[in-house]
Structure formats: C-alpha cells, structure tokens
C-alpha cells in the first residue's frame, strides 16, 4: 500500500465538470472546478444548498465519475482507481451513514471489519474514539436511539476508525445543536494535530467558515474563491457597521436600512442592525436615516458571511416589500392568539414533546429554536391540528384545531418543512390549486394568484413545474401558497433550512413585512442567529422548553465576565449545559479540555 508515501497535495481537482442528466440545456453541478488542498489542514467547502458540495464530495471519493477533468486523492486517480481511493479516505455522508438498528458497538465493529482495522488494534482505537466522542456509556444503545449530536459523533468515529489520511465530511453539522457542533470541531482539530490528517468538510453554515484553515467557496457549481477565511473577510474591511437607533423596532430599522442608499446588506443582529456598505468609509447617519435622531453607527470587524453576501448579492430592494397584502386584520391589542399549556406528545414510550407551555400574542414573530429532534415540528403539527396531543391544552384563535371544523383552519397558513407542493404541477397550477382549496374563486382567485406571482417574483417561472425550481424559488412558492387565503396566523416549519443566505435574507424581509401587517408568525429554526428576528422565542431541547423570553433576555442570561456580549448560540449552549445532568448531558463537562 502507498499509504506511507508523502504527498504534498491531499486532494486536487483539475477542471472538473459534472452535469445533471436530463433537460435540454445541460445543467452543471460542477462547472470547471480546480483546486489543490494542502495536507494536514482543515479545509471548509462552503456554499448554499445546490452549490454542488455533495457532488464534489462524492467525486472526491470515487462514488461519481466526472463528465470531464481529473481528480487525484493522495496521489491516486479517483476515476481510474476508485477502490484504492475508497480504501484511503474516511468519509461521512450526510445523515452519517449509520445503521439505526445496530448498537453503537455494532456499528463500530462493522466499519472496523470493512476498513480492515486489525483485531489487536481495535480495543485501543475504540477506547480512544469512544472517549473522545463521549459515547463510552452508550456502546450498547441502538444508534437510532441516540440524539442528533451523538449520531453525528458516532458517524465521525466510524469514519475515523482506521485514521485515514484524508477525511471527507459532508455537512456533518447540519441540524445538530451548537454544543455538539463545537465538540465536533474540537475532535476534528485533534485528529489533524495528532495524526496529521487532512480534512475536507462541507457546510452551509457560514459562521463555520471561520473555524477552517482554508475555505473553498462554491456557488452554483463554480469555485468562487479559495483561501484563509480572513482573506475573504478582508475584502469587506471598512465596509461593515452596526447601527442602532432609538424609537424604532429593529425590524423596521432593518427594512429602512436595506433600502437606504449605499447599503448592500442589512441584517438584524442582536439589538442592532448589521450593515455591509457598497463602498468603504463610514456612512453618515442623516444619509441612511434622514428623519431619525439618536442614530448610532459603529464600525465592526468583517466576517466571512459579510464577504459572502458582498460577493453574491445583487441589490434587490424591491423584495423587501410585500405589495398590497390587503389583510383584514385588527392588529390592535395584546390579545393571546395561541395558548399552549402542559402540551405532551408520546410516540409509544418515546416522549417527543414533554410539558411544553407558551403563549403568542397577535402580531408577534414567535420562534421555536432547537436542534433537530428537539420536538419543534411535533409541537407545530399539534398546533395545526395535524396530530392529536397526548396531553395538555392548546388553543389557536380559541380553537383546538384538531377537533375544530374547517372554518377555524381558514385562520391559519402552514408551510411544511419539506417541500409539499405538487412537483408535477406548474407554479401557476399550484397557486390556483391552493387558492381554490381555500375556497377562493373567480376574480378573487385571479387577484390572489397575480398577487403571489408579483410579490414573490415568480412570474418568470409561472409555467415551470414546481419540481424543477431552484430551492430558493421552491421556498418562495411554498410561502406564497401558505398566504393565498390571507391567514392571520402563519406557521413556518424550518423555512430556511438548507436555503442559501441570500434567500434567507429575502425570506426574513417578507416575514418581517407580514408581521408589520399584523400577521402572527410562528417559526421554527435551527439557525441560532435567526432567533434575533423573533419578538419572543422558546428554546427547546429533547422535547422540553429550556427557556422562554425575548432574544435580549435570553442573551442577558448568558452574560458573564468571559462573555460580555454573548450570541444566541452562547445562550443556547449555556442553557444546555445548565440542564439537569440527565443521561448523556453530564459527560460533556469532563470532556472539555
């Protein structure tokens, strides 16, 4: 075996192209991608969904054959010798590649056997990996019964068994709680230091770019740049600011700022709005917000995300407004429209939602924040009447939607986590169908459909089948369909999962406009920073509510001497660490270095 050979390049792509099959015009999943990855470093493959990250990963481990170009892995030709490549790399696919009906130990045994880890070395390696991942107490547990974070670490342990020279991780952190994400990064860096391993890790979280030694920025199949994350941020040096103003809500401030002259991007961040300007130089407050006093503008250090947005964003201020929504809603008063008390949902002996209580007032954006498996979607389904509760009380505009008549459901709009429109119908047909399913006919229907096409900029795509839309447009269409009947309460289940940062900004701009118009919005998300868009939120973990309050209150709790300005992620991690050390939770403290 050539494993002992030294290579000065861990992975190289030379003008690699990969096409999607089908369609008259060839679609490139990867379009002329070339790069070299130096050994012994952590390289991040950053890009939104559909950028081609998974295709690149699969090409790198010989699971796909490129349409053109050359790929070398540790000096091996991935096209000619896929089996040799597959023996040389460690790979963790999305969803971790675990057998859920096998125990932790059995999963390890299987991969040890398949990777040819000699029996005499196993005990030591198992001990090391189990200790590192904190899975030692759970070796007998079925992988399917592990939490998302534990699954992710087990998947990683399986890929690391034979200490490969090159480790490929495809979106290892997606949907996993922030604490587990931090731990994963610690494990990865330990491997790089101890074993000199090279790591290529793909992620859609832009904040993770800053944890990498080097970043490959991929967008729509093209490599937009390669370099240390700081190099990217340097591009927007002197163009990033934080703005705060008195007497205006952050949402309104953000809407105003995003339309102000010279502003490329405006994003709610904590109690302020973060700006990326088109040019360097501090903007003057009267230029940005002519009619406001007390405007405070502060220069801040640029981040990777700023650079990403600056590179990709074409200014489209129009998207931020939501044309005549024509909602007939009395938005006055702090009336509670949603009340949940002691809500419980069991599936067999598994408690998905355990004693959850909260209430939502009219016109609020209310967030349910938590990792995958925290019980957010189950709670949502019970609120929408799609699933009966096992216990507790809930009411939405005074009804329990599970037993209420269809009339009550007219008040709500629901956008499911998965794309749930008809893929074989065109955009227009989908909109017409949803409009008529809410009883809109004739001229009213025409008006609403036209409104949806205009507001969501879907007119150019109205003939296209929903299945063929880019992800961001699919999400717009789902959003439009949920709004056809002008509901006063809107349920959005993970609306931004897997959507690129630009589409996410657009989405939040629309949601803000809805809230300003008096619509009550309930939204779930696993993006911690999105909590800042919410008026109030609950943080959930393993079926229970850890905390309820405004984003400011949440962060205030996490404030300490070490963390004078905690982020929502810090607040979340602190809440998880403070929990009663139930099984699997106590271990995390000793694990910290």
């Amino acid at each position, binding site marked *: 075996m050539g494993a002992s050979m030294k290579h000065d390049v861990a992975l190289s792509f030379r003008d690699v192209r990969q096409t999607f099959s089908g369609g008259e015009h060839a679609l490139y999943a990867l379009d002329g991608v070339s790069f070299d990855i130096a050994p012994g470093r952590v390289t991040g493959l950053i890009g939104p969904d559909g950028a081609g990250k998974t295709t690149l990963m699969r090409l790198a481990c010989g699971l796909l054959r490129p349409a053109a170009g050359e790929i070398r892995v540790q000096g091996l030709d991935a096209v000619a010798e896929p089996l040799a490549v597959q023996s040389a*790399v460690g790979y963790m696919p999305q969803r971790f590649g675990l057998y859920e009906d096998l125990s932790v130990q059995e999963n390890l045994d299987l991969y040890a056997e398949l990777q040819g880890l000699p029996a005499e070395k196993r005990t030591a390696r198992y001990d090391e990996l189990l200790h590192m991942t904190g899975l030692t107490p759970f070796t007998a547990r079925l992988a399917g019964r592990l939490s998302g974070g534990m699954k992710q670490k087990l998947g990683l342990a399986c890929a690391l068994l034979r200490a490969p020279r090159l480790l490929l991780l495809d979106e290892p952190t997606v949907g996993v709680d922030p604490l587990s994400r931090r731990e994963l990064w610690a494990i990865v860096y330990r491997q790089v230091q101890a074993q000199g391993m090279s790591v290529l890790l793909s992620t859609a979280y832009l904040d993770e770019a800053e944890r990498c030694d080097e970043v490959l920025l991929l967008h729509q199949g093209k490599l937009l740049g390669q370099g240390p994350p700081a190099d990217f941020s340097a591009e927007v040096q002197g163009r990033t600011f934080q703005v705060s103003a008195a007497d205006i809500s952050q949402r309104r401030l953000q809407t105003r700022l995003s339309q102000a002259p010279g502003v490329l991007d405006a994003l709610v961040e904590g109690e302020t709005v973060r700006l990326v300007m088109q040019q360097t130089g501090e903007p003057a407050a009267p230029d940005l917000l002519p009619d406001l006093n007390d405007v405070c503008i502060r220069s801040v250090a640029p981040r990777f995300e700023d650079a990403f947005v600056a590179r990709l964003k074409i200014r489209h201020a129009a998207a931020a407004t939501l044309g005549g929504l024509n909602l007939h809603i009395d938005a006055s008063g702090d009336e509670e429209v949603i009340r949940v008390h002691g809500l419980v949902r069991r599936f067999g002996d598994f408690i998905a939602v355990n004693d959850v209580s909260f209430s939502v007032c009219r016109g609020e954006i209310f967030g349910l924040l938590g990792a995958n498996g925290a019980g957010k979607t189950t709670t949502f389904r019970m609120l929408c009447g799609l699933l009966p509760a096992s216990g507790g009380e809930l009411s939405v505009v005074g009804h329990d939607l599970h037993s209420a008549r269809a009339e009550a459901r007219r008040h709500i709009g629901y956008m499911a986590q998965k794309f749930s429109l008809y893929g074989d119908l065109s955009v227009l047909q989908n909109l017409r169908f949803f409009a008529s399913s809410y009883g809109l006919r004739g001229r009213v229907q025409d008006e609403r459909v036209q409104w949806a096409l205009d507001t969501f900029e879907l007119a150019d795509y109205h003939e296209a089948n929903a299945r063929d839309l880019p992800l961001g447009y699919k999400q717009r269409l789902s959003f439009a369909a949920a709004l056809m009947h002008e509901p006063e309460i809107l349920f959005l289940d993970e609306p931004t999962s897997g959507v690129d940062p630009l589409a996410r900004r657009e989405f939040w701009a629309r949601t803000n406009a809805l809230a300003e118009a008096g619509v009550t919005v309930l939204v779930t998300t696993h993006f911690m920073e999105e909590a800042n868009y919410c008026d109030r939120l609950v943080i959930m973990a393993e079926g229970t509510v850890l905390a309820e309050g405004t984003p400011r209150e949440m962060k205030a709790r996490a404030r300490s001497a070490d963390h004078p300005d905690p982020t929502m992620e810090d607040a979340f991690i602190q809440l998880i660490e403070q929990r009663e050390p139930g099984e699997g939770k106590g271990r995390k403290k000793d694990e910290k270095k």
Partner: protein
Amino acid sequence: MNMRLRRLWGMIRKESLQILRDPSSISIAFIMPVILLLLFGYGVSLDAKNIPLGIVIEQPDTAAQSLAGAFDRSEFFRPQRFAAIQQARQALAERRIDGILWLRNDFSSRLLSGNEAPIGVFVNGVDSNQANITKGYIQGTWQAWLQHFAAAQGRALDLPVVMEQRIWFNPALSSRLFLVPGLIAIIMTMIGSLLTAMVVAREWERGTMEALMVTPLHMGEMLAGKLIPYFALGMGGMLLSVAMALYLFDVPLLSPFWLLMLCSALFMLVSLAIGLLISIVTRNQFLAGQVALVVSFLPSFLLSGFLFDIHSMPEWVQIITYLVPARYFVAILQTLFLAGPVWPVVLVNAGAMLLMLVILTVLVVKKSYKRLD
C-alpha cells in the same frame, strides 16, 4: 484473502443482526408461511364437498327414494327436497342450490324398461369449473347407484361402456396435496425477492449504502454479504413449510430429502438474484416492493401452475409462463412430493432454473458497481 473474509464476515454479521431486530423480516420469513399454509391447507380447496343440490321427486316410489338416499349419504352433496321443479328452479336462480336432480313421475318405469336417461339434471353454469365438478359428481353417484340397483335386482347392467378410473399420484384427488408443495415456491419467492428487494433498497434510501461504498469493501463481498443471510432465512422459511406440509397436512414426500433441498437452494438463489436486481435498479423501497410484487410474486402465484393449470391457459400466456422461475420449481416440488424423483422432470426444470440463475447473476454483477450514478 483474509481481509476479504473479514469484510464478508462483517457484512454477514451486520445483516443477520438487522434481520433479527427487524420484526418484519422475521414475520415474512416465519409467520407469513404459517398463515399462508394454514389458509391454503385448510381454507382453500378446489374439491367440491357439500354441494347444495335440490332434489325433486314427483313419484316417491322405492327406486326414487333409494336414489335420493344415495345422494343423501354422499359426502359431496347436501341435498334439499323440493316439491316441484318450479321451486327448485327458483332456488337455483337465487343460487341457494348449485344443481337440481329431477326424478319425473315416470322415473321407475323408464328405469325398469331401460331405454332412455330417466333423470333430469340442471347445473348452474355461471362458475363453469364448479359446474363441471358438480356434473361429474352427480354422474358418478348416479352410476354407482345404478350398479348397486342392478345388482340388487339380480341382473347385470347393460351399459355399453363401463369406465373405470385410476388416478395416479394423488389417489384421493385432494387439492391440498398439490397446493401445499406449490405454496412452498410462493413462500420462497416472497422471502427471496420481496424481502431482499426491500432491504437492499432501504440501504440506498437511508444513505448507508454511500458509507459502505467508501470502504475497501468490494461489490462482490457486499452482494455475498447480503445474499448469505437472506439465503439462510429463506431456507429456514422453506424448512418450516416442508415440516408443516409433512406433519400437519400429511403430504407424502416420495423423494430423497437432499434432492428437495438442492432444488430449493437453486430456486432460492434465483429468487434472491431477482430481488437484488430489482433493488439495484429501483434504489427505492416503495418502488422495489411494487416491482417485486408485480414481476415476481404475482406471476409466481398466477402463472406457475401452483393454482391454475398452465395447459389450460391461452397459448401466449403459456409462453409467458416460461419466464416465471416459480413455474419450474412448482413442477419440481409437485413431482418430488407426490410422484418421487422423476429424473427427466427434475433435470429439465432444474436446468431451466440454473440458466435463469446464470443470466440473472450476470445482470446483477453488471448493474452493481461502487458508484452512485
């Protein structure tokens, strides 16, 4: 070599653990055969018994009473008396009875003079198969009674031809005896094709196939690792079915046991190869299940000769049956159980299965490569 065995062993162990933990595998392999065998062994019978028969006697004299008594005693019939033919016809039309035996008032005199058929028989022909059976049984009972009657009268029966039947291999003509061995083929098809197609497709769906592929595992090892546990499972289901056939349904096994096992193993491999091929092509559990049902299970049920006689099918359907592997196995099973090792039958059918196995194996190997595209 050692590494290869290691990896293969890893796969086999993993697959076996999954089978043991998945209640649906166990139930398809062991509970479904029991249910099917009980259903077909006890419930479904192609024999006619207790046929509801209407009897109309217009002149109740000794001969007529004696004939009616013969029908009463027969296990094939459950006779009901009707006073007049009109009522009996009404009952036939309403499907309360399947046939009518009509003894007119000149029955005895005609019988004794011996010139014409003295009885009238009506049979409901909607279900032609059932009608034929009913007609045959009525005829049989009538002739038996006639002989008996003639003997009692002290004179020979002057019938032109007396047919004497001898039925080979299944003398009691019990449909159970040929249904139960045929059912073994159906059960093995279920385990081999349906179950295997679903479990391999499941690996694609859950993304575990991707993780397996990026290991030194060879495709051959992976296929063998899948095949061996399911082969064992299928043969287990088969042994259970054979045991039930022999001890519960008293089906005789007139051939050596090893020959039965050998032929079954061959058929099992064919079934597994079909299942693997389906799952490799579909990569989706739902689709794999549907395809397996349509191309494997239903043909085995309908076109294998297990339930419906192939020779009475239209010619073009008969040609299709040559593509159904269960056809060959059903022929072997029925022969091995009921007739003994008739080598020409066994060898021809086993040869056909072997040919199918070779073709399918080539297809599976060609279609399975360690790539996702």
